[in-house]
């Protein structure tokens, strides 16, 4: 392993807890999909160095109007597919939304409407 790879590897560990950086999403994605680092690298079809450089890039803001532009900038710099990057981001964001959401809202959606007075009168 080259010294540059070791250096980049240590750097992405430092930012892996910070959702401002792509390293956070790469790590979460590998945990969700139960993939090793090497498998994520294969999925992104990039080199290990590009993978680490990707980890050090700031996460494109999914709510921003120029999200696609930001995503393309990162994918171009790291020689990765913007489609796959988008998939990773969206997958992690969705899973995290479900994980941190208030469970009652989903229960409400699943429950039948309670019969009100009007419903009883109609029957």
């Amino acid at each position, binding site marked *: 392993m080259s*010294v*540059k790879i*070791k*250096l*980049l590897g*240590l*750097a992405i560990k*430092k*930012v892996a807890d910070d959702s401002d*950086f792509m390293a956070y999403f790469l790590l979460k994605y590998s945990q969700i999909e139960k993939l090793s680092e090497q498998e994520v690298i294969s999925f992104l079809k990039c080199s290990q160095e590009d993978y680490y*450089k*990707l980890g*050090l*890039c*700031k*996460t*494109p803001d999914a709510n921003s109007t120029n999200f696609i532009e*930001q995503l393309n*900038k*990162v994918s171009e*710099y*790291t020689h990765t597919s913007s489609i796959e990057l988008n998939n990773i981001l969206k997958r992690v964001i969705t899973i995290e939304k479900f994980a941190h959401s208030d469970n009652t809202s989903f229960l409400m959606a699943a429950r039948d409407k309670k019969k009100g007075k009007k419903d009883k009168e109609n029957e």
Partner: protein
Amino acid sequence: MAEATAQEIELHKLILSGDSLALSKLYDFHGESLIKILKSRYPKHAKLDEALIIESVTEALFGYYKNPKTYDQTQSTLKRFLEVASERDLINLLEKHSKYSKRRKSLPNDVELQKNKRNRATKDNSDPESLLIQSESFVSLKKALSAYFKSVRDIELAMLIISKVRETEKYSEILEITHLDIEEQQLEVKRNKDRIKKVLDREDVESKLKRIFQ
């Protein structure tokens, strides 16, 4: 006094503006060269523990990335600024490391530790039968290793490696280098361990020994 190059000014601006590629570019432009510089200035430490150099470069790059205003582009090049920062971080790390080693070294050797009653996995092997088995195994292990190593010293070093002993002190005693500086001892021990490990790996000695002792 050298001023920042155009490329450095551009990178500095990217960092100040919070550009999405800034940290990655900082690592790409300066990471490897900083390691090379520190390795050439501290060759002994580079051989002994490369991780310390990598850590100090990481500290310096993150330090600058988080507080980019500490760098004045009219005073020096960014490269020089990062060089000074990473060298300072390395010195701090080495000091911390040597303090830790001294503290470890200053522990007396003759402290009698209490038997850990909670640790039921600890087995008392001092009964005559166990001692006999141990000494027989010791002799057979020595005999088996003599097929691969000519000197008694190498055989003893190989036995320590196989037993997964990590303390430098034990190796230093065998190599008779306890009078040397701790860092010199570590370097010499590492050199000898690498040499022995090469033979052990090449001849696949450990798995052969496992078969003998099964």
